[in-house]
Structures are given as structure tokens and as C-alpha cells.
């Protein structure tokens, strides 16, 4: 009964969200799957998404991203907690929510036997786009993704990048307030990825808020205004890419490739005042420092002293992946 009471209380919150700067408000959202054993896929997650931003949802496989997206796209009901999309509440105003969101799923759901035009026309009708405007809208979107000359060709003749762009604009036919993109560039070559990124940025300028899930850190970093990290059903961090990087106390990472190594040198380097930590990985010495260029000469002098041949040197700022590893203690691939 407590759950029901909470829901009615939150209804007002959703209604008041109409003119707020947040388009999505999630509070204590939890989803538990009860099959043979209980799995908490989403565990008391709360956050908001601002109008007009590109919001990245990152995390390894099984982190709960997909479940969260499925709840927000009305495909699944949460076990507890509330989620508002604009002034509508998930689980109550699903019909209205479906008319203001656009969804581009991870696995292609284009009808490859049908032409590009027919695919858009079909969804135009499902999405209830004004019939008098639909034709013009389809041509406008085909133009946008540079597929005008292939409008009548079956989608099966298209490249992966072309299909992806077509599928993204298909979700955009009805000018949604909110666009969900699930792994939009998975399996695409670098050239196509860049095109899809441009496409996403362009759609974002049309006042559409975009929620993007991805595995690719570079993609999130390049596109997203803010990024949420998820791991094991929990939200572990949410901020702009730049701020997230500041989470790591280390300023920079010094990576030195070597031929052979002496244990003594590691101790010597570790004892340096500016050095935070030293790690050896695959013939590479990884040294966390506050400022790489300042420490480098000292480190090199030490290596010289132990007559260790240096094969390569790089100084890099921490990537989002480093941030994730720092926050969770596990890598992305390890899940």
C-alpha cells in the first residue's frame, strides 16, 4: 500500500514539472526481476535529465542501462519508485508519453525488404504524424540524411551507416521532445560513426533532448553534455565529462615502455614526492602524477641510473574509462 500512496503523491510532482528545466525526473526507481532468483536490475536510481541536453548513460553489460531505458520508454513497469517524462508519469500516462518520445533500438528493426521511403511512411502512420504533412516530413528527413536519391530502394541494399541514420530519423518523424538512442554506432566503421555523430548533434539543435546509451567512451565524451555512470543497477556518478575527469585525484598518466625492468627502480620512482602510484602492465610502466611534464625528467633520470632502456613515452589526461575504473575498481570489459 505504501507504494500506491507514494505514486499518487508523485503525480503532483510530475504535473508541476511542466515548465521545469528537467524533462525527466526519476526518483528511487527500482526494478526487481523475480524468476528463479531475484535480480535487482535497477537499484534505487534517482536523477534528472535537463531539457535540450544530450545525456549519456554509460556502463558495462548488465549494468541496468537497458532496463532503465525500457522503463522510460513504457515497455516495462518499475517495481517501485517513480519516473516522470515531461509532466507525465510512467505507468499511468504511457499513451501520451509514447507520443512525445522517439526510440531507436540497438538492434535494427527496419524492414529491409521495404524502401527507405516506405519504412518512414509506415512509422509516420504508427506515430500518428499529420497525414497532410507526412510526405513533406519524410522527404525533409531523407534529405537530412542524404538518402533522397535512394528513397525508393530497399533498405537491404544500404550500408550499415545508412541504415543507422535512417533508423535514427525514423524515430524523429514526429518531432519528439525526447529521443532515446541505444548504442547508435555499434558495429559501424569510423567514417559512418562520425556521420552518425553529426546527425545526432544536428537533431539535438532542434530542441530535442537526447538520451544515449553507449559502450564507447570516446562517443560519450564527444557528444554528451552530461554522463551518468551505471554499475550493477546503481547510479555511481553523474556529471559533465570534464567534471567527471576531475573525480580522479591524479592529474595525468605517464606511460613508459621499457625493455627490461629492475625492481629497484619502481621503489625509487614510487618514493618521488609527485608520484601517486606506479603500476607495471604489459611492458609498460604506468605512473600516476599530478603533472606529467614536471615529473618526466626526474623519472627518466631514475631509469637512466638503473640503465633501463626506454622504448616509448606518453603523457595523457585520464579518459572516462579511467574514471570508471577508478569509481568501480573494475574495467568495462570485465563487467
Amino acid at each position: 500500500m505504501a507504494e500506491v500512496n507514494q505514486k499518487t503523491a508523485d503525480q503532483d510532482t510530475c504535473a508541476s514539472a511542466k515548465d521545469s528545466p528537467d524533462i525527466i525526473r526519476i526518483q528511487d526507481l527500482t526494478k526487481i526481476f523475480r524468476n528463479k532468483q531475484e535480480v535487482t536490475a535497477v537499484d534505487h536510481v534517482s536523477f534528472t535529465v535537463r531539457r535540450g541536453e544530450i545525456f549519456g548513460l554509460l556502463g558495462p553489460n548488465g549494468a541496468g542501462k537497458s532496463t532503465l531505458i525500457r522503463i522510460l520508454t513504457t515497455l516495462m513497469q518499475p517495481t517501485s519508485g517513480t519516473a516522470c517524462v515531461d509532466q507525465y508519469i510512467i505507468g499511468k500516462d504511457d499513451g501520451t508519453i509514447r507520443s512525445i518520445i522517439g526510440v531507436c533500438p540497438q538492434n535494427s528493426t527496419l524492414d529491409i525488404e521495404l524502401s527507405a521511403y516506405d519504412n518512414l511512411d509506415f512509422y509516420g502512420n504508427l506515430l500518428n504524424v499529420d497525414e497532410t504533412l507526412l510526405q513533406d516530413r519524410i522527404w525533409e528527413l531523407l534529405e537530412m540524411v542524404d538518402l533522397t536519391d535512394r528513397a525508393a530502394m530497399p533498405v537491404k541494399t544500404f550500408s550499415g551507416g545508412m541504415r543507422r541514420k535512417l533508423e535514427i530519423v525514423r524515430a524523429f518523424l514526429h518531432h519528439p521532445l525526447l529521443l532515446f538512442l541505444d548504442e547508435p554506432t555499434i558495429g559501424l566503421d569510423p567514417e559512418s560513426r562520425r556521420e552518425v555523430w553529426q546527425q545526432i548533434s544536428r537533431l539535438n539543435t532542434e530542441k530535442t533532448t537526447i538520451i544515449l546509451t553507449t559502450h564507447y567512451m570516446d562517443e560519450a565524451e564527444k557528444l554528451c553534455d552530461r554522463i551518468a555512470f551505471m554499475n550493477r543497477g546503481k547510479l555511481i556518478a553523474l556529471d559533465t565529462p570534464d567534471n567527471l575527469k576531475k573525480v580522479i585525484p591524479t592529474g595525468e598518466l605517464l606511460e613508459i615502455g621499457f625493455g627490461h625492468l629492475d625492481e629497484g627502480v619502481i621503489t625509487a620512482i614510487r618514493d618521488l614526492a609527485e608520484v601517486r602510484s606506479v603500476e607495471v602492465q604489459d611492458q609498460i610502466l604506468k605512473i600516476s602524477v599530478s603533472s606529467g611534464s614536471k615529473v618526466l625528467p626526474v623519472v627518466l633520470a631514475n631509469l637512466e641510473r638503473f640503465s633501463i632502456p626506454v622504448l616509448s613515452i606518453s603523457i595523457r589526461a585520464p579518459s572516462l574509462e579511467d574514471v570508471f575504473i577508478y569509481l568501480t575498481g573494475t574495467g568495462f570489459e570485465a563487467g
Partner: protein
Amino acid sequence: MEKAQGIHTLIRGAFAIFRRDFKKFLSNPFVIIMTLFMPIMYLIIFGNAMGGTITGIPLGVVQEDPYIQETPLYLAGLDLLRTYHQEDNPALFQVTVFPDEFSAQEALNNRQINAYVVFPSNLSPNREVRLYIDSSEYMVPTLIQAGVQSSLALLGAKNPLQVYDLYGTINYIQFFGVGVIVMAIFMTTMMGGGIALIRDREMGIIEGYLVTPVKRSSIILGTIASGTVRAFLAGFIILLVDMAIAGVIIRTFESFVLVVLVLLLICVGITSLVVALSSRFSSQQEYASSVAFLNLLFFMTSGAFYPIIGMPYWLTWLTVINPEYYAIDALRSIILRGQGLSIIAVDLVAIIIFTVIAIFLGITTYRRTIE
């Protein structure tokens, strides 16, 4: 040495593939059972449905007017026809006596009997014996004619036998061709339509519909409507082929309307049934093996190949609940016998009951998968 090494590599690779295939085969017990079940059912149903002995054919016997008293030929004939049988089989005919030719004719038209024999009256005892046969069935007319002919011979009667085929000469291809129309509808819908639905679901295409504001009832309505039209086209094309190749004809506009009505009803029904079935099965393979079995069962007991009268009793009860039987029976009445609504009414009611149940099942099961 090198050769032995080569053989070893060959066997190792082959064995790896063998093991992989076998493990996959064993991983799905349902499909194994169904694949083994199929040939066994084939044997039992196909063997019985096709190989049965036809006995107990409903036959009318009547004496020609003007009636004075029963002629010796009529009495002896009636007696013999009642007991006439082939070798060790039960009696070939199940004889009903009619008071006059008119009522016998009516019974034949209403399909209560398959044929009737008219013995000459007292006034002209040497006139021919007449035999009126419903020629739209397969095998049965030949058996009736042979039975009546040998009965007369046994009696030593000199009267010639005059045979009247009620619906003209109907070849097996025409008899079978009408059954194939319904078979085409069942096959295309169960195999093609159902698998396409499961594939759409597996690929997430149905889920794609669900995140759009399209109404759930629109999805169901659209799916059943498209399946129905596809099924109807399949049936209609076979009907046209029947007309071109088998020489099947539709005599009147009324007949044509009735054919379309029966086809549409059965198409809606079978499409809804397939929607329900495909919603229940999670994989294409499971669905395909179950449906192949169901298809066999429906088709074999539908009377499309072989008259129902030749089936053993335990198989005929499958016919009673088989929608395909009613559809084929109705189409044969309309197309081969040129009969109208009053004769096919029973078939129509059965088809409507099936269709209504199927629509209900289709809507409720499909709704559950998309909500």
C-alpha cells in the same frame, strides 16, 4: 606418417562437427519429440485415413410408380442389397426404403443418401433398373455401381441397369482440387504467416510498434487483417488454377458469393488461430514442428484426399472438430454439386463457431504478448 596425420586431422574436424550438431539436437527435447512423433503420426493417420475399407454407404431403394404391390424383383433386390458385402467385410450398403421416387431424390439432394436404386413397377417388370448416384465423392460412386450391378447379376435378373450421375462425371482431380484450395489456405497461413510473426517478435520489430502511440487493438487488427487477405489470395489463386487445370466450374453468381464467403470466414479463423499459436511459442523451430504436426492432422482428416466414410470410427471424431473438413465439405457442395445455402448451412455454422473461437483466442493471446 604425414598421411596418418592428415587422416587424424580429418577425423578430428569431422568429429567436432558431429558432436556440436548432436549437442544442439539434444538441447531441445521438444523438437526431438515432435520430429519423431511426426512420422509415427503419419503412419497411423495417413495409413488409416487412406487405406480404410468403405462400407455402410447410405443407399435408398424405391419401387417405381404406379405402385400396385411389391414386385418379386424389388423384394429379392432389397434383401440382397441389405446383405451384399465384399469378401469378409461388413455390408456395403446401409439401405433405406423410400415410398416414392420424389422423397428418395430429395434425400439424395440433401445428402442423406449417396445413391438410390429404382426398381421397375408391376406394369413393366422388364424395364431397366435405374441407379441415381451422387458422383461428387471419390471411390464411393464406383463402389455403389459395382455393388448394385453384381447384386442384379446374383439375382439372375435380365433387367438392364441404367446409371445416372447426378453431378455429371467428376474426376479425382476435381474432387481433390477443391480440397487443395483449403489446404493452401491452411498451409500458407500456418507455415508462412506464423513464422513471419515469430521472426518479427524475435527481431524486436513488434517491440518497435509498442513504443509508438499506435493502439494495441490496431496492431492486432492490422496483423489479423493482413494475414486474412494473404490467406484468401492463396486460396483464390488455387481456385483459379483448379478452374484452368482441373476443369472445376462455378455455375452461378450465387455460388461465387458463397465460395468467397466460406473462404473469407475460414481465412479469418485460421489466421487468428495462427496468431494465437505463434504468440505461445518462443522459438521458430518449436512453432514449426508443432504446426507441421497440426497441419498434417487437419489435412489428413479433412476428407480432402479420401472420403470420410472410409475412415475408421476413431478417426472420424477428429473430423467432427476439424474446421478444414467443414470448409472442404462446404466448397464441394457449392462447386461440385452446385448446392446452395440451405445445404451448406451446417458447415457454415461449424466454420463460424471455429472462427469466433479462434478470433477470441487470437486476440487474448496476442494481447498478452504485447502488453
